[in-house]
């Protein structure tokens, strides 16, 4: 019997999927959670074999939940999403997610993926992988991305410089190159673009 935890903030989808998965003989849905925090708490308590996590949840998203769980317990996480934003598959794989599939898959396919993942394999949906391969490449260098990352909460140039052990003038140079490359006027806009496209 594979013990499965479901986490999705959309109640209808969660209960429909739970009902469909319960029809499978070898799958037992042990918990249904409405957000990321609850999913982490329940998973730590119940130690399920597989966690099926929605990517878009309030508070912690699916990948963040998977990251926390992988550090704490031996569970396999599968992330489900309606629309995979750029960079999210890379982030998910890096945080040890064992499966990634779109919400459009039928319950029988989800069950098959749960079985594969529970058996120790990894499953990445071909559609999501194809989308991830056609992501736009970042025109910024690693150093420029560091600068944006260090300043994403609106830190001052001085704070960024201290965080990266650079001279403030160097940081200003990097920023003006970034603004030129992205054709935007402010650092905040550059951060927004980079976050939206999954570069930072």
């Amino acid at each position, binding site marked *: 019997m594979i013990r499965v935890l479901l986490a999705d903030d959309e109640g209808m989808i969660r209960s429909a999927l739970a009902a469909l998965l319960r029809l499978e003989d070898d799958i037992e849905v042990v918990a249904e959670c409405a957000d990321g925090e609850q999913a982490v708490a329940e998973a730590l308590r119940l130690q399920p074999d597989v966690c099926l996590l929605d990517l878009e949840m309030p508070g912690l998203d699916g990948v963040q939940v998977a990251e926390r769980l992988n550090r704490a317990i031996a569970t396999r996480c599968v992330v489900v999403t309606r629309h995979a934003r750029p960079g999210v*598959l890379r982030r998910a*794989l890096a945080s040890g997610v064992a499966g990634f599939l779109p919400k459009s898959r039928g319950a029988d396919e989800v069950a098959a993926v749960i079985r594969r993942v529970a058996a120790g394999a*990894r499953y*990445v949906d*071909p559609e999501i992988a194809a989308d*991830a391969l*056609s992501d*736009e*490449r970042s025109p910024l260098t690693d150093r420029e991305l560091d600068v944006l990352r260090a300043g994403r909460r609106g830190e001052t140039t001085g704070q960024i410089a201290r965080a990266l052990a650079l001279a403030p003038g160097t940081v200003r140079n990097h920023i003006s190159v970034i603004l030129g*490359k992205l054709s935007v006027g402010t650092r905040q806009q550059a951060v927004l673009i980079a976050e939206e496209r999954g570069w930072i």
Partner: protein
Amino acid sequence: MLPVIVANGVSVAMTPFHWSPAESGSAGTSPLSERIARRIRDMCHARIVLSVSSRTEPLAPAPSSAAAISLTRGVAATWWYTLTAVVFIEVALIGAWTGIVAATDFSGAVVLTIAVGGLLWCASTLLLLFDYRHRFDAGPGVPWKRLIVPFIVAVAFGAVGGWLTGSWQLAVMPLAQSVVLLNWPRGVRFRVVVAATLLLVVLAFLDSATYSLGAGVPAWLPGAYAALLPSMTVSSLWFWDVLVTLDRARASESRLAATQERLRVATDVHDLQGHHLQVIALQLELAERLLPRDPDAGMEQLRAARVSVDEARQGTRDLATRYRSVPLSDELANARDLLRAAGLDVEAVIDPGAGSAPGSALGPVIRETTTNVLRHGGGRRARLVLTRIPDAWRYEITNDMVAGGVGSDGSGGSGLDGVRRRIEEARGTLDVRAEQSEFAVVVTVPSKVEETR
């Protein structure tokens, strides 16, 4: 219910159908439902062929941001060039006047006043020139506050210079030049230039009659130069105007292209979704009515509706994919990053000229093979190589085998079969090599494949 679907000028109108229980009761349900189902199928087919095949022309390539930046820099540089040219003409004229005054019997103080005052006036015209740069964006009305300083300087320099040297032309020239630099409407500026030139020519003759210069000095030089000043200035500015107009035209052209693109996407999405939703609604309605009397036929319709939903989803996806294609080298770099993120040790060798490799043939191969490595993963290493060989491109992906790898569950093979068909259409070859500890896919595609994407 009378759905009418219009696509590319072809309209397909469905005849209204009224379900009457009496009719169905006597004739039986299945022939009618089959008929309707067939109609739905035909409609689907005709519609999809219409909507998709007509829109496969390649998208206009978007200008890269680097090119746009260098163009913007070029426009800015041209502005500084124009500004420098105008100021240089002015400074040279002041130099000529200073020389003339120095050669004639004037005191050092007068020479100094002409030189310093002249340079001050040149600097004041910079303010007018800076305003001129953005004349196309300037609002209506005259910015008096911004004009007052340059005009006071021009009038003061003219008055002092004219009084000290006794030259009418030097008295009027600074003001005339400042007036020429104003943001005049196109036709008016021509008249202003002609008037200023005539005035300066007349004053030059007046000067030559009443005013004698030192011996050996080419007396006509400053006079002729001053008379030419307005037209030389305006021709430099005209060059700038032409450039700005061209730049605006280019920008509005690319905006127009983007708008057309958006419209096309909107129409495609609307056509596709509207059509599929209509078919699904019809199938569901049919199922709803069939279920009480013929559950099997009703279930059949429900299954058909599910298939339609899948088709709609796939259609939407295909549409989205068509509008987001990236260069092959980016796709390979993304593949490398993904495999690295999945914990593999990745070695990637990508030919610098990968941008010219046939993307429509190689793209799907890269996608499929990368997905396979990810999916059947658990391996440690992967190697991606895209190289140019004579008359062809060679792509190779190698990864270490793990138990239960590609082919053992049947899912990996079928994906590669699809890829193989595409490669063969492009007259390429695909080899799969599965050894004890290594799995490799090697693809070669002739470099002169006709791009069909």
